[in-house]
């Protein structure tokens, strides 16, 4: 395995949401999705900062799309998860899973741990 890629919690969520949205992932839809699914409100500016940072790191790729009247004629920027981003998500998921798999049921008595 290549070197570990660090991913923050918000970054992880954003990457996953971009994946969920597929071709329709741009800042406003990502924000709505995050709000709807995770019940997590994030301000637009902060989301932009995060999206661009992920792009700079190489986890996201982007291309300019169409514009609408509502946007005052300004284009949308659509994002997609790059191979590197997918790898990073994969890593995070695996490390989590391996931890979950080895949970001692006695320590986690209040929830039912699926084996």
């Amino acid at each position, binding site marked *: 395995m290549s070197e570990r890629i660090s991913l923050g919690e918000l970054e992880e969520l954003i990457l996953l949401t971009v994946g969920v949205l597929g071709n329709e992932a741009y800042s406003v839809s990502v*924000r709505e999705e995050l709000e709807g699914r995770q019940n997590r409100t994030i301000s*637009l*500016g902060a989301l*932009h900062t995060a999206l661009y940072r992920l792009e700079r790191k190489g986890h996201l790729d982007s291309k300019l799309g169409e514009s609408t009247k509502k946007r005052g004629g*300004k284009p949308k920027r659509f994002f997609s998860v790059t191979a590197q981003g997918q790898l990073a998500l994969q890593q995070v998921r695996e490390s989590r899973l391996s931890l979950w798999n080895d949970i001692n049921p006695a320590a986690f008595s209040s929830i039912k741990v699926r084996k």
Partner: protein
Amino acid sequence: MKVQPPKILRWLFLLLCPRERRAEIKGDFNEVYQTNFEDHGRFKANLSYLRNTLSLLNFEGYLRFVKLSNHIIMFRSTFKAKFRSIVRFKPSAIISLITLSIGAVTSGFLFYYISYESSYDEFHADSDQIYRVNSMAQNANGDQSVRAFVPMPAGPEIVSEFDEVIDFTRLQRISPTISYQNKVFEESRFFLTDNSFFDIFSFPIVKGNSVSALASPQTVVLTESMAKKYFGLADPMGEVIQINVKKSFSLNFTSKGFTVTGVVQDPPKNSHIQFDFLASISTLGDFKKDDWLGGIATYIKVKPDHNIPLINQKFSPLIRENLGPYLQGRFNMSFDDYLESGRDVSFAIQPITAIHTAADLDGQFEKGVNKSFLRVLISVGILIFILTTVNFFNISFANGLHRLKEIGVRKSLGAFKYQVFSLFLMESAVLGLFSVLMAALLVVITKPFFSLLQLELPLNFELSADFILAVVSSAFLICLFSGFFIAATLSTISPKEGLRGNVLRSHRGINLQKWLLGLQFFVAFITLMAAAVFQSQNDYLLKADLGFDEEKVLIVHQIEKVQSKEHQVLRNEWANLPEAKSISLSYHIPGGGFEMLEFSAQESEPLKWPVLVADEHFLQTYAISALYDGMSSEVAQLDSSEVLINESAMRELGYLEATEVLEKKLDFYGKTLTIKGVISDFHYENLYNQIAPLVLLSPLALPEPPLNPYKYASIRFSDISPEIVDQLEQGWNKVSPTTPFAFSYLKDDLSASYLSEQRLASMIKGATIVAILIAILGLTSMSQVIFRIKVKEIAMRKVLGASPAKLYELFVRQFFWPLSIAFLCALPLVVTFLGEWLSKFAYRISMGWQLLTLSGLGLILLALGILTVNALRAARQNPVEHIKVDH
């Protein structure tokens, strides 16, 4: 895109948004804004836009900076400490906050008001090129008058002769009755003007063509509010309104239809030309076209690089060239003979922006603001500003003395002078921030007070950005100045002095403070004495003997709406009331306007005198006495060739005794009138001016007896009650059921003419309250400082057997010199300053020493009272507590 966030938010966005990705980010922001706007409304949309914009900042980096920066940490702790001391209701902080806000609101309001009054007519696009041509006329007696008008042909002549002048427009005001279909109104803001009106002035036209709206005869342009009044929602363009005017010498028609050719925005309040209707002057045709003795308000527009003295010099030859032939033609008199007889006329131009603040001229459309009024307000504004600054300094300094040890500790731990300096500066900045908030709150609370002053300000002035800006910036300036001085004083204290807490060492500061307190009292003395003088002059104006009895007289208006043949019916109807003592119908009433008409006695030149047209009961109703025994003031029946004159007119004719002037003749527009009697002088105008000549006529004596000879009915009562007004109205309704009954009390009408004086007095009174409040608060804090400093001394003296009286003296002595010198300096200032103001009244109070010293003494007593309270506290203290404790 339908909706957009406010400009300031968009600006903030541009500031914070990274440049390279601006387009798409802006698109995202717009989309979210639209959605929010549709779902939650404008406010929430704006709020979320602001939050989103702010989040564009890279917060992580910023927070790291904040956490690590020493300056920010220091500011946060200062802010917190000050904030807590305010919310914990620390009296001293609250007091300085309150005085600061009151001072800021007062001075901010005054500065705003002054800038408003000086902004008159500046809205014209070329206001620096627009001038009014005034004329200075001198009659054969050597009396001079400055008039806001020039002869009718002067305007065209000036434009054709002077290269510097581009264009002119003339304005003649008339008061017609206007009817359209079934709507009939009396209008007074009706002007005849040239087509060039809209070229010279910048009154935006809403409908119609500004180039040619007033080109043809019998066309009229109305304001938007008049369009609504006469036509409602219908389109006024092309409609014809009927104009009816009284027969007069200045017009050649009495009834004409005018076609509406345009609608113009209502003139702004800060325009000295206040119009509702503008009609084409070409309606008059050739009337008075060559009359070089008449007058009409004339405005000219000059070229941008104009030379005023040069233009003024050119007027004299112009007058000679034109007035000369005119005199020759009409009176067979050469121009040199005209000058020989002592008469003279000259023109001068006045910038349009200066008209409102300059002295009122004869025939000016709207009364301007009194210059000394503005000067008083400016000085009061500055004084309050200084007062507040000084007070804020004093209170904060007193509080700073508490913290000498803190300063000492800080300094010995290695704080530099500038660090202590910035600490105190920052503390005042925090206080300033709160005072700005409080000042804004005060503005809202005191809104009714400002409207009480009846200032002619734009209606929404309370919320106007300029006003709030003025208040906020004065609050900030006050903080800045005083904060700077406090910081400068306290940061110089050496660590040794500070740690010992030896405040006596900082004696210099205390002395300075004492004299600053003197300055505060100086201001308080000035405003208090000024308020006393203004108030007593006002009372004098309202209570002065006017030469007639203004009590219990009720004026019924709109008598002209009643047909002449019904007048007797109306009179009988009212005369039946037991309380009605006397009823007089007249065209003019005291305090109203008067027309100047020309009279000439034998072998003298024309005299322009005001006339009062009234019936035979006028003298009785107004209780005006007659000077000549043979005349009964009960009934002064005059026929078409008889007049009464007042004493001043008699003197101007050159007679000293009423008996001498009787039966003398006056020529009056081709008629000969006989003087039937002399009435005593009464103040038919106001108390600004000396009583001028007056001629009392019956309507029959007028050159052309008008259809409606009377406008007012004056009724004297033995007693006025609301039931009487009802009964009068019933009588009125029997005769004229269609016209509403309109009445007023003579006394109210008369006092309304001193509105600007009352306004000034109420402003000064308000300022006085603020000044005294601030001075008293300053005195309180100062005496506490002295008490703190002297506490040990007092305790020791007490132990050694000093009497309470001695201690009291020790305490009060501190304040003796600052207060007395403040009083002695204020006195001559008030006397000269207010003497000038009073001198514009022909009838005025004498500024006696009692008035000034009494008001001064009042304030001194108040100050002594406050000192006594503090002194008693000092004298009654338990010496043991203070001797053994080292402060």
